[in-house]
């Protein structure tokens, strides 16, 4: 309970320190007193958009790209977004010193291996945003890190230079062949998994990509940790809008909240083919009536 001085998400007023373009995306740097120190790779923050009397009530969730715990401005964090709707367009027009209400860190972070095993990080588009903090944490544990980045076209890749710096190998795919190999990340992933003998695959990107990567990881005998992207209204577990079917330790499928039970899930536990449905064997599923 943050208000009691116990660890937990905070609600703070952040100040814009910088906003820069990165290909088709925007990188927003915010002060967020207290949040950077608590943030682990895979955590996200939920931003209120449009100001205090905004007609846009729903928070926008963004995985944390990077944090700086100390510095001239105290703790700061970076998020990456595409200006694809009214809320993100508002964010893209922020100026230095503007304020934004931030809640975070939220969600469950990536689980890290206890031993130094080879890991492959796969990201689609700006799904690479949380991967750099993750790579740093993995390398600090002595893990080999290989990275696969994919996007529709070169301008929709994020963090290529950073990925080159942190990865043992970097493989890039674009749908149009404008950078790296023409095709999808799943076209090159089997080769990377074989070559690295990866134990863990970390993935962040569109649901279709996650589904394919998770299944491929399982087929290669690797664990997978997938950061899902479900639309959320609150980010803190009270609205029940961001649910997806996930198999629990007891083997029972439940509709769980991606904000509080995720956004990182074991890839072999998510029922990818049943996302956006209620599987008939899920806990509390409607009873199918006979004729």
């Amino acid at each position, binding site marked *: 309970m943050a208000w009691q001085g116990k660890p937990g998400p905070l609600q703070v007023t952040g100040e814009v320190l910088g906003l820069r373009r990165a290909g088709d995306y925007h990188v927003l740097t915010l002060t967020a007193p207290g949040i950077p120190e608590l943030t682990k790779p895979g955590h996200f923050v939920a931003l209120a958009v449009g100001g205090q009397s905004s007609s846009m009530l729903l928070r926008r969730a963004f995985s944390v790209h990077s944090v700086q715990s100390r510095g001239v401005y105290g703790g700061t964090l970076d998020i990456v977004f595409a200006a694809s709707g009214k809320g993100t367009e508002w964010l893209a027009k922020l100026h230095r010193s503007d304020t934004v209400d931030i809640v975070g860190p939220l969600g469950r972070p990536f689980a890290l291996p206890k031993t130094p095993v080879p890991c492959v990080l796969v990201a689609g588009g700006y799904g690479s945003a949380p991967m750099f903090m993750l790579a740093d944490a993995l390398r600090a544990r002595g893990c080999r890190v290989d990275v696969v980045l994919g996007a529709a076209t070169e301008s929709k890749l994020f963090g290529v230079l950073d990925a080159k710096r942190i990865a043992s190998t970097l493989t890039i795919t674009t749908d149009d062949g404008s950078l790296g190999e023409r095709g999808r990340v799943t076209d090159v992933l089997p080769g990377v998994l074989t070559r690295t003998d990866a134990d863990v695959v970390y993935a962040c990107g569109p649901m279709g990509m996650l589904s394919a990567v998770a299944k491929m990881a399982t087929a290669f005998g690797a664990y997978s940790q997938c950061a899902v992207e479900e639309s959320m209204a609150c980010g*803190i577990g009270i609205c029940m809008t*961001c649910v*997806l079917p996930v198999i629990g330790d007891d083997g029972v499928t439940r509709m769980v909240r991606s904000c509080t039970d995720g956004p990182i899930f074991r890839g072999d536990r998510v029922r990818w083919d049943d996302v956006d*449905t209620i599987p008939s064997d899920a806990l*509390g599923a409607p009873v199918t009536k006979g004729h």
Partner: protein
Amino acid sequence: MTRAVITHGPRPGVTTHLPEVDMRTSIANLDLPSPVLTASGCSASGRELDQFFDITQIGAIVTKSIMMNARSGRPTPRMAETPSGMLNSIGLQGPGIDSFLDNDLPWLVARGARAVVSIAGGSVDEYTRLASRLRHVSDIAAIEVNISCPNVESRGQVFACDPLAAAEVITSVRRNTAPGIPVLAKLSPDVTDIVAVARAVVSAGADGLSMINTLLGMVIDTDTMRPALAGVTGGLSGPAIRPVAVRCVYQVHAALPHVPILGMGGIRTGLDALEFLLAGASAVSVGTVTFNDPSAPARVARELAVALAERGFDSVGAAVGYAHRLPEPHSMPGGAVAVHPETAVPPVADSEIASGVEG
């Protein structure tokens, strides 16, 4: 007397040296330390919000409507943002009454928060069984009966839209609830005559009314050119519906002035909450706005205290139904001069009259 208050009393916008406002209120025989509660379905069972503010300091947590059995709810997408609001179709996802009583309620009680338990059913029998399960559970502050559910025994007709069906549910819940526990009927605005439904449930034994539930709405995605929600239609909530909610509370309070009302519908600020009190609500629930601001219930309570003090109210009770008062030509300088709400003449509280503040 009033003139003296204008001269010497606090003015709107001035927040220093405001007199203390008695924020206690009551709904039937339920006494609350604060008139601001959470709204069912917008606060789960309190645990998540306790990370952002002390849930024991607000009026109560109104828990998400619980049914007899675990329910998976509807497929996604379950939500769409709308101007100053949102549309949702969650489908009453929940763990079922057994899990709720084993896990959620004990936590709230141990935490020291007041729990208003919302129940929902698909038949009169389900509501009856839920009330019976709760009858022997101690530490429940009140039961809120969510009657905006389709009646499976009546071709899916929503209980709240039929005065007879609504009354039948309330009669049974009241009969199966411990006498000291207030039963609140949560009304739907999607009716022609909300006063008629209110009368029916009050006659059936409701100790108070929660109003309003969401309005049925729909959004069509112009990219896919299909309904935006998997459930096709959904409940509209948020500040967009506030005028509808204030109207409902005002109409019902005018018709049934002695029936306590828990008002809700798009409350975002203390002034919004004040509107509901003035319309006749004894307490309010903050719902959808909590998604935007997880500390909203605590913030609204603070803002409401200031708003009441600025207007010369010394208690919540003094403001309840105040918008229904008769015209006061004598207190309007110049008689017919239009008064801007922010500079409106503050009421004279009884204590001020008694203590001769105007002197």
